[in-house]
């Protein structure tokens, strides 16, 4: 099986000009790799650098040193640290999706449309895409009266479901998911876990951040533990 992600010697710090040039070390010497179809769990205390690492892989943060080699199905190995923006955007469109802790959706778009958005390529696809989206949020137990409401008005748990549905609907090749089960009840949690396992069966590789033991033990093939921005332990489940 091929290595889909190889992080080498990664360093990330924040230089804050507006705080008297304060420099905050966020990640130091981070090295790990992921195989295709593997689910890797990132663990560690709050502030240990889990989300920073995930955002750096997604290129929302720019790494200062090191390499993030991603094996793209279309264009071979791409170093996400140095790849040009256009390439990164193409990968985001076609292969990599990121599901953050917080819902950041465009205002005034209904729940179904938010979820359907990643698979609508042409306007003519919209009806079909909405059907797929509806099925998915139904599976996630979102009440029917919310389907055509705006997610910005939803509760935490409801937003979380929209967020997950939005991330997985396109069946990405590589899924980055930050606390997918945090504000969900036990039943929905199980559904989410099942959905992610489903994706795995179809070949998706998943990088997962969670504090939740239950989610972690049910999903992760491998656990990478972070402390103060360094990897202190890597264990296989």
């Amino acid at each position, binding site marked *: 099986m091929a290595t889909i992600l190889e992080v080498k010697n990664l360093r990330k710090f924040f230089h804050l*000009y*507006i705080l008297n040039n304060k420099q905050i070390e966020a990640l130091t010497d981070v090295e790990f790799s992921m195989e295709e179809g593997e689910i890797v769990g990132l663990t560690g205390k709050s502030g240990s650098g889990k989300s920073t690492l995930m955002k750096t892989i997604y290129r*929302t943060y720019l790494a200062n040193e090191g390499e993030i080699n991603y094996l793209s199905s279309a264009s071979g190995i791409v170093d996400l640290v140095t*790849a040009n923006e*256009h390439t990164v*955007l193409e990968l985001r469109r076609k292969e990599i999706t990121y599901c953050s802790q917080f819902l950041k959706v465009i205002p*005034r778009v209904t729940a179904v449309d938010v979820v359907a958005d990643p698979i*609508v390529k042409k306007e003519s696809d919209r009806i079909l895409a909405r059907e797929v989206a509806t099925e998915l949020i139904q599976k996630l137990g979102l009440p029917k009266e919310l389907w055509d409401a705006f997610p910005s008005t939803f509760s935490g748990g409801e937003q979380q479901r929209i967020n997950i549905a939005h991330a997985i609907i396109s069946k990405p090749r590589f899924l980055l998911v930050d606390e997918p089960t945090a504000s969900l009840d036990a039943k929905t949690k199980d559904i989410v876990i099942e959905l992610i396992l489903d994706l795995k069966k179809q070949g998706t590789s998943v990088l997962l951040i969670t504090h939740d033991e239950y989610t972690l033990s049910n999903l992760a093939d491998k656990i990478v533990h972070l402390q103060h921005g360094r990897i202190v332990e890597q264990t296989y489940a």
Partner: protein
Amino acid sequence: MSSSIKNDWVLKVENLTKIYGSYSDETIALTGPQRGTNICPITGSIVACANISFELYPGEVLGIVGESGSGKSTIVKQLFFDMEVTNGNAYLKPYKNGTVNILTESNQKKRYMRNHLMGMVYQNPRDGLNFSFTSGGNIAEKLLMADMFHVGKIRERASSLLSKTEVPVARMDDLPAYFSGGMQQRVQISKAIANNPPLLFLDEITSGLDVSVQAKVLDLIRGLQRELGIAMIVVSHDLSVIRMLTDRTLVLKDGRIVERGLTDQILQDPQHEYTQLLVSSLL
């Protein structure tokens, strides 16, 4: 990797420079963000923008952000031939397969590009619309420029554009002077996309509108972008507009690009001092 991707830009800009007044060889070195000014201390000439280079890919939305006077509008006005350039090259893929510097083409060729390959929406609807013609007539002008000489077809196209931009078709034969600001802006957008251009410039299009109308215009642009896949350059001083519409962003200060990156990276991990200030000022 993939040189194939790198070659399918729709617009490529190299070293675009605009200087007002007579300048010397040192003018560019003596101005810019490090010097904190765009006025040359020796010649007194004003560097509106200098050494601007970027590429734009099909279907991509590029934001240009910066404070007033940073040279944002100058860039798009030069690319839309509203303004003469001092220096620089630009290539447009749909025009002669991107092999010719469009900035040095003849006026007639530039007019062809403006009419067939580009669209522009200005901050002030008066710049993009002729207020003595009806709103349908304004759209018709663009279609006539592209040699559509069939009144019935012109009116059909105009009404479909107006309904797409949510302007009541019943008001097609009214003067835009009698419209609200938001509606004028929609008519302007209809006109700009009338010939299905592969490239659209939006210059501070929501700046003169109140918040609720702003939101609607932004929704409209986003919807059109999704539907038509037009490559766009969005100029704005407003980071929320940039966040909502764009994939990539250039940050401009004193006529230079101080930072460029993916829009979410610019907003969440700004590298340049000026960008950090800008992002931290976001309400």
